[in-house]
C-alpha cells in the first residue's frame, strides 16, 4: 500500500500556483482565498507529518515507483517534518499580512509564493542531490519574482545582485554535484553515505573538493561570512512579507549543511569524517560578530532586522559546527526561534513604516504615529526574542547552545563571543526602539492616521509569529524532547540509509 502524504506538500502548492496563475489573474479575492487555503492545508499536513515522523521511523516515497538509488526518493524524517511545519507556520502569517495590499502592488504574488513553498518543501523532503539542486532553483526563481515584487529602482537593483549571486552559487552546486558523482557514481544521499567510506585514497582529494564546494554553496544560501554580502541588501529592500518569508530561506542552507554533513560526512565517513567542522566554526563566529555590529550600525529598522538575521545565522552555525547531538538539538531550537522572531520583526518594521508617512522605518525621531503603543510593544517582544533575553525563546535557544558548548575545546571563544554579541544586539535594538517609540513620543505634533488597510489583520499576522515564539517557550519541554530525538536520529544515519535503500527493495 503506497501512501502519498509525503509528496503532497510539494504537489499541493504546485497545483494551486498553476491554478492561481492561469485562472485567477484578475480576481485578487479568489487568489487570496486559494492561496490562504493552500497555506492552511499545508500547515495541517505538516502537523500530521510531524506526528507521523515523531514515532522515529524514516518514511520514503519513491517518485514514479523507481527504487532508490536509481530513482529519486523523498524522505520524511523528524528533521524534514519539522522544517515543513516551520515553513507552513511562516507562510500562513506572511499571507495574512500580505493581504493588506502588498499582494496587489505587483502581479502574480500568490502564484509566486505558492511556487516558493513548493521549492522549500521539496528541498526539505528530497533524498537526492540533483533533485535538491532542482528544488533550490524552483525556490530561487520564485524568490527572484517575489524580491522584485512592487518594483522601485533600489529593490530591483538589490534583486539583480541577489539573482547574480545565486546563479553563481548554482553553477558551483553543479560543479560539486559533478565531482561527487564522478567519485562515487551516485547522487542519492543515502547511497552516497554508503559509498563515501570506501572511496579510494587517490580520489579523496576530489571527494573533499566536492563536499567542501557543496559547503560553500550552502554557505551562500545561509549567508555565512565571507559569502554574506547579498543578505542585508536583499532582505532590507525586499517587500516586508517577502522578507519575513525569506527568514526561512537562509535556513534552507543550514538544513542542507546539517543533512549532508551528518549523513554522508559524519562519524562513518572514514577519512572524510566531520569534514566541514574546521571551516564552519570560524566562519560562523565571524558571521555572528559582523551581524551584530550591523545591528548597531543600521539606520533603518528593516536593515537592523536583516543584520540580526545574519547574526542569528552565525549563532545557529556555531551550534551546528560543534557536531554533537546536544549541540544539534540546541541548534534546531535556535533555528525555529530565529526564523519566527525574524519573520515577526520584519512584519513589525513594515507596521512602523506604513504608519510613518515620509519617514518610513528610518531610525529617526518623528511625530507619534497611530497605534504607536501596540506596535512598540510588539517590537519590544520581537527584539527581546532576537537578542536572547528572557522570557522569550531566544534566551532558551542561546542557553541551550552555551550549555552544549560546555565541553568544546573552543568553549571560551564561543561563550565570550555569544555573550558579548548579545550585548551588542541589545544595545542596537534599544537604540532603534528608543528613537522610533520613546523619542518620538516627546516629538511635537502627531502624524495623521493614514488610511491603513486592514490594520487588524496585519497586527494579527505579526502577533501570530510572536505567539508562535512564545509557544516555543511555553512548550519548551515537548519541543526539546522532539529535537533531542531528531538530533539522535541524525547522528544514527543507519536508520535513514536502511529506510532509503532497503525498504524499496532497491539493492542491486
Amino acid at each position, binding site marked *: 500500500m503506497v501512501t502519498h502524504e509525503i509528496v503532497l506538500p510539494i504537489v499541493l502548492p504546485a497545483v494551486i500556483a498553476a491554478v492561481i496563475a492561469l485562472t485567477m489573474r484578475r480576481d485578487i479575492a479568489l487568489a487570496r482565498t486559494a492561496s490562504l487555503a493552500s497555506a492552511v492545508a499545508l500547515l495541517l499536513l505538516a502537523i500530521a507529518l510531524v506526528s507521523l515522523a515523531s514515532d522515529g521511523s524514516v518514511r520514503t516515497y519513491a517518485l514514479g515507483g523507481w527504487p532508490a538509488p536509481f530513482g529519486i526518493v523523498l524522505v520524511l524524517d523528524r528533521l524534514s517534518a519539522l522544517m515543513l511545519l516551520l515553513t507552513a507556520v511562516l507562510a500562513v502569517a506572511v499571507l495574512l499580512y500580505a493581504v493588506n495590499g502588498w499582494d496587489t502592488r505587483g502581479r502574480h504574488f500568490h502564484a509566486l509564493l505558492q511556487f516558493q513553498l513548493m521549492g522549500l518543501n521539496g528541498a526539505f523532503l528530497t533524498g537526492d542531490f540533483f533533485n535538491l539542486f532542482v528544488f533550490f532553483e524552483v525556490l530561487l526563481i520564485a524568490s527572484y519574482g517575489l524580491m522584485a515584487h512592487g518594483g522601485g529602482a*533600489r529593490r530591483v537593483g538589490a534583486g539583480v*545582485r541577489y539573482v*547574480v549571486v545565486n*546563479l*553563481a552559487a*548554482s*553553477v558551483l552546486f553543479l560543479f560539486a554535484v559533478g565531482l561527487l558523482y564522478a567519485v562515487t557514481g551516485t547522487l542519492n544521499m543515502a547511497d552516497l553515505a554508503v559509498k563515501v567510506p570506501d572511496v579510494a585514497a587517490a580520489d579523496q582529494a576530489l571527494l573533499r573538493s566536492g563536499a567542501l564546494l557543496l559547503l560553500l554553496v550552502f554557505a551562500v544560501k545561509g549567508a555565512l561570512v565571507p559569502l554574506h554580502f547579498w543578505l542585508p*541588501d536583499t532582505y532590507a529592500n525586499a517587500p516586508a512579507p517577502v522578507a519575513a518569508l525569506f527568514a526561512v530561506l537562509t535556513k534552507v542552507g543550514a538544513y542542507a549543511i546539517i543533512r549532508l554533513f551528518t549523513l554522508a560526512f559524519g562519524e562513518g565517513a572514514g577519512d572524510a569524517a566531520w569534514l566541514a567542522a574546521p571551516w564552519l566554526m570560524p566562519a560562523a563566529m565571524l558571521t555572528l560578530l559582523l551581524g551584530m555590529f*550591523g545591528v548597531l550600525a543600521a539606520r533603518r529598522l528593516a536593515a537592523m532586522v536583516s543584520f540580526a538575521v545574519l547574526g542569528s545565522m552565525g549563532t545557529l552555525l556555531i551550534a551546528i559546527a560543534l557536531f554533537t547531538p546536544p549541540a544539534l538539538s540546541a541548534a534546531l531550537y535556535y533555528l525555529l526561534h530565529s526564523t519566527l522572531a525574524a519573520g515577526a520583526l520584519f512584519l513589525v518594521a513594515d507596521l512602523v513604516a506604513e504608519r510613518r508617512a515620509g519617514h518610513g522605518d528610518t531610525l529617526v525621531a518623528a511625530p507619534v504615529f497611530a497605534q504607536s503603543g501596540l506596535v512598540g510593544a510588539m517590537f519590544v517582544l520581537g527584539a527581546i526574542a532576537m537578542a536572547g533575553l528572557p522570557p522569550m525563546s531566544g534566551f532558551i535557544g542561546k542557553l541551550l547552545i552555551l550549555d552544549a558548548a560546555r565541553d568544546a575545546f573552543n568553549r571560551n571563544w564561543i561563550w565570550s563571543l555569544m555573550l558579548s554579541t548579545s550585548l551588542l544586539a541589545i544595545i542596537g535594538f534599544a537604540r532603534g526602539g528608543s528613537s522610533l517609540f520613546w523619542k518620538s513620543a516627546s516629538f511635537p505634533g502627531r502624524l495623521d492616521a493614514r488610511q491603513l488597510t486592514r490594520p487588524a489583520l496585519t497586527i494579527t499576522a505579526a502577533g501570530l509569529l510572536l505567539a508562535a515564539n512564545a509557544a516555543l517557550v511555553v512548550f519548551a519541554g515537548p519541543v526539546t524532547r522532539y529535537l533531542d530525538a531528531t538530533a539522535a536520529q541524525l547522528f544514527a544515519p543507519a536508520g535513514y540509509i536502511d529506510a532509503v535503500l532497503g525498504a524499496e527493495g532497491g539493492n542491486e
Partner: protein
Amino acid sequence: MESLVATAIGMLTATGVYLLLRARSFPVVLGLALLSYAVNVFLFAAGRLAVDLPPVIRAGGDYTDPLPQALVLTAIVIAFGMTAVVVVMAARAYVESGSDRVDDEPSGNGDGGDRW
C-alpha cells in the same frame, strides 16, 4: 581528448569569472552563460569521456554512462530559464535606475532614505 576538454572547461570558467567581475549587466549575463556552459561540459566529463558508445547497456558491449546526459539536459533547461530571468531583471533595473551597474550603485540613486 581529456586535456582538450579540461582546457575548454578551464577557459570557459576563467572567462566567465572575469566577465562576472566586470559588474555591468551585459558582461555579467554573458559571464553567467559561459559559466553554465563550463559546468555542462564538466558534468559530461563526470560520467567519464567515451567516444562512439551508446548510453544503453548491451549484452557484451561497452556503454557510456547515461545519467550525466540527463543531468546536463536538466541543467541546460534551468540555465536557459535563469538567463532569461536575469536578462529581464537587469533590463528592468536599467530602466528604473538609468545605470547598468550590478554592484552597489553610487549613493543618492533610488527612492530616498538609507539603503541599510
